[in-house]
């Protein structure tokens, strides 16, 4: 969804603040929430459903609240969406389980052959004006812009379906280079660029 979380390219937020602040958690509830959230991905996840819950926040509240308040809203929303208070009792994660989860992680790449034949490195592509009502990882500032595929990252699960329980629908994922000139028209005379990872469905091949 085209939501307030999609901040890339906005110019209304002033200077970078808190450059010297090196605290992980301001209040103790943030520390506890961080732990609860990580442990709840199995029960309340996947991570893209959690991200989408943040995206659906009231925009004014999103901008006025802190990072961990976003997490809190998302965890509460997931508990409600899944009617989790009514779910069965499970086998709880122990400190040993936690150590193994932290060290292993959750892998998003798949070995399977994707339905879509991967596009070639070097090809010029355009990001589609893809604007689903649900979750997506295609930022607005990239939409409609032309870039060059610089790497094939592999075959990755697709967040747009995964977030809504519609399956992994794995696809080729590319690193695509967009020049600052293309993104921001005449404002930038340099050779600067943004490199961003985009799924196959977000792209169309430009006509030669």
């Amino acid at each position: 969804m085209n939501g307030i979380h999609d901040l890339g390219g906005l110019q209304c937020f002033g200077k970078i603040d808190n450059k010297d602040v090196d605290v992980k958690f301001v209040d103790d509830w943030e520390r506890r929430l961080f732990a609860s959230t990580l442990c709840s991905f199995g029960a309340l996840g996947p991570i893209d459903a959690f991200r989408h819950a943040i995206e659906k926040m009231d925009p004014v509240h999103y901008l006025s609240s802190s990072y961990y308040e976003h997490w809190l809203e998302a965890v509460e929303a997931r508990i409600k969406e899944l009617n989790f208070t009514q779910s069965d009792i499970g086998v709880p994660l122990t400190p040993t389980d936690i150590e193994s989860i932290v060290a292993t992680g959750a892998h998003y790449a798949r070995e399977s052959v994707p339905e879509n034949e991967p596009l070639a490195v070097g090809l010029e592509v355009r990001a589609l004006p893809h604007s689903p009502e649900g979750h997506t990882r295609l930022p607005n500032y990239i939409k409609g812009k032309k870039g060059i595929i610089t790497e094939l990252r592999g075959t990755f699960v697709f967040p747009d379906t995964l977030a809504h329980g519609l399956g992994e629908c794995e696809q080729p994922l590319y690193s695509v280079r967009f020049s600052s000139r293309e993104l921001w028209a005449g404002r930038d005379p340099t050779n600067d660029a943004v490199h961003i990872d985009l799924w196959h469905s977000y792209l169309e091949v430009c006509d030669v």
Partner: protein
Amino acid sequence: MSDHHDAPSNPYLKKRRDSGETEKLTKRVQKIEQLLIDKGVVTKEALDRIIEIYETDIGPLNGSQVVAKAWADEDYKQRLKTDATKAIAELGFSGLQGEHMVVVENTPSVHNVVVCTLCSCYPWPVLGLPPKWYKEAPYRSRIVIEPREVLKEFGTNIPSATEIRVWDSSAEIRYMVLPQQPNYAKNMSEEELAKIVTRDSMIGVETL
């Protein structure tokens, strides 16, 4: 220079919470924690262990060891550039939010910097949890459109002939910058090298 540079930093974020608000947030988090424990998702000890891991065990010292080794050992640097996840795991760092790592190397002609415009994705196994500014609107919005101005606010001036490459972590690939080794550090041991590497240089907002 346009007016928006004079705007107050992050003007929409509510900066202070009174004790009543903190108490409300604390209660909401306690409710979640209790629910997860009651439903058998996790034990209290496991939650405590997560906090301990991310507050004390994992942080930018991990990344600085990776950088120091890359500077000291050309073969390692090549492995890091070819398969960063595997090369980083050689030093014992892996897992959550670092499942698919890519390391981008700064050179005299290219300066790399990392962001996540849609949320705040960050390579936890090598850098720990992100600093506050990385998660806030000013950095996330501006670094893709005016990277040179943003870097200047960190005291970092990149020569106009050097290309700035901004990596927007929109998928599950996590990025770490391999800073340029400063001239004064050419003859240092790996251990000494690790000490001069900063977190901000591995995000790309600082040069060494």
